[in-house]
């Protein structure tokens, strides 16, 4: 059965490449045709545009274009214009509800043990209080993971988002040792997910997961193209995750919208391990005036998660 799967895989791969080649040719062909003057037939068709207006278009001018994977991969390397995305996490509101983890896993077809956004229980020192720290990928402005990738499979876009191209990753895992925040995960075995029929690989959504490659939080770049918030931000029941744009100077958690610069000033936003010089794009608001106390994060956890937070005091505590 394994052999069948392998030969099917190689057949599938061949067909994909063949199909991609044909697709590129056809787009090129379509482009060539589109470049020419289009003959009008006089027949008008009503079309609904993306911003809700109804327009009338000549029928001949409409052409359905199917976008192939390689085009999507190239488009994914260029970010959204004039944006610099940033996330603000209010630690005063995080209660380890773990809805962010579940929404992320659901949206990206991840196995249950892959956590692109991870929740840590941190206690900085003996006399400081513990708190819950959600840690997505920080999409650093000086990303060590990107610097060390030998094949350019991971890259930083102009809008600040760092993506991984699963079709180029060779699985050397250098980026995983390069990241000081342990933000990346590796697919150690075949994830065995059912891929939707019409799926075209897009690094912005990054499904399906590919065995032998690295995956990480992508700030849901696919949703950002539709002006929608990332999945974790939408899923958080406490509204602890805010997402926004530095250029626009606004962040929102879906319910309230704030000015980024004001929030940083009033609540003393900071970045985690600032001294490492990685310049993260995720800011934290200190856990003061907490809405929920630390212990509420331990309630309702299943056995496995309770196990993982057992020994979490200060790391260099005198034993």
């Amino acid at each position: 059965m394994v052999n069948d799967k392998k030969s099917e895989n190689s057949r599938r791969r061949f067909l994909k490449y063949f199909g991609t080649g044909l697709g590129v040719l056809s787009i090129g062909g379509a482009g060539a045709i589109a470049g020419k003057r289009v003959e009008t037939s006089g027949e008008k068709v009503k079309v609904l545009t993306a911003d809700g207006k109804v327009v009338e278009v000549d029928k001949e001018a409409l052409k359905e274009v199917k976008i192939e994977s390689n085009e999507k991969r190239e488009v994914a390397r260029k970010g959204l214009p004039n944006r610099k995305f940033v996330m603000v996490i209010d630690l005063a509101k995080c209660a380890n509800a773990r809805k962010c983890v579940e929404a992320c896993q659901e949206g990206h077809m991840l196995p249950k043990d892959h956590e692109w956004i991870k929740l840590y229980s941190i206690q900085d020192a003996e006399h400081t209080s513990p708190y819950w720290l959600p840690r997505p990928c920080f999409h650093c402005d000086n990303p060590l993971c990107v610097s060390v990738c030998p094949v350019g499979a991971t890259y930083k876009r102009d809008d600040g988002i760092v993506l991984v191209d699963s079709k180029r990753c060779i699985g050397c895992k250098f980026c995983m040792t390069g990241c000081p925040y342990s933000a990346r995960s590796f697919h150690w075995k075949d994830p065995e997910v059912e891929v939707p029929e019409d799926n075209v690989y897009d690094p912005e959504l990054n499904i399906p997961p590919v065995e032998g490659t690295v995956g990480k939080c992508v700030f849901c770049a696919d949703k950002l193209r539709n002006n929608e918030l990332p999945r974790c931000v939408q899923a958080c029941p406490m509204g602890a995750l805010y997402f926004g744009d530095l250029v626009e100077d606004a962040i929102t958690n879906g319910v309230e919208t704030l000015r980024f610069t004001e929030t940083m000033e009033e609540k003393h936003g900071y970045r985690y391990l600032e001294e490492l010089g990685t310049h993260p794009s995720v800011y934290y608001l200190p856990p003061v005036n907490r809405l929920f106390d630390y212990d509420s994060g331990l309630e309702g956890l299943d056995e496995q998660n309770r196990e993982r937070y057992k020994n979490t005091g200060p790391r260099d505590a005198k034993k």
Partner: protein
Amino acid sequence: MKKELLYIFLLSLIVGQWSFQPLAAQVEEEDEILSPYIEFKYLKNTEGQRILDAKIFLATDLGLVPLEGLPVKFYTNYEEPELMGEVNTDSKGIARYIIPEESVLPMDEDNNWWFYAEFEGNDRYEMTMEELTVMDVNLSMSVNEEEGAKNIILEAYTMIEGEKIPVSDEDIYIFVPRMFSLLPVAEGYFIDGLAEVKFPEDVPGDENGNLTVIARFNDHWQFGNVEQRVETEWGVPASHDVAESHRALWTQIAPRWMIVTLTIMLIGVWGHYLFAIVSMILIKRKGKKTE
């Protein structure tokens, strides 16, 4: 003998019915009907269109899930509900009904309109409905810039029995549209139908400074959502451009000094290899000569 067989047959039918009953109940239970929620809002937009938005969603473990394709009926007239229209919810779970401009809506004794949105339910989802009372308010907005200060002048009035009643003692908020939502930037207060708001100086716009300014009664208990939009150039020009030629450790193109150093080292080393290979060729040649 035949009679007994008949009795046995009838008995088995009855027993069979009994044993099938619990199965039927099981099947019913599996097809449990879910209860969605409905969120019903009124919006009067800047063109004066009156819009009713009904959003139907489910509360699940993974958060709120919008339901698509469910028909929502919109009614008005508290005394005698009349059907205005029926719209299916879209992919975001929102059924939007735009009240035709020419429709004159019946008002109750408090001069409010009454709206009612209902999803009648189907075999998967239970029925859900919501009602809304709205008082119509006319909002107008004008902007001017005097001596560098940016002012917004708002006027609002309601019509009660043909008379203009100015709006007093109400808050109004000034927003600017951002990528995912509206950002509140200023606040105004209506006194005698008039509110003057000063617009802040430091709000980022697009790269040319263009900015849409929105004045809005936001989820107002009486007026619903009423907004007016004006295109201005009041934004601080803001853009984010990383030059293609930017070289760093993490860019596609390496810093120049790296490329230069690497090239020099490689040429140096492989040059020596070339020397060794040439030596070997020379040895071979000399060997042939002596032979």
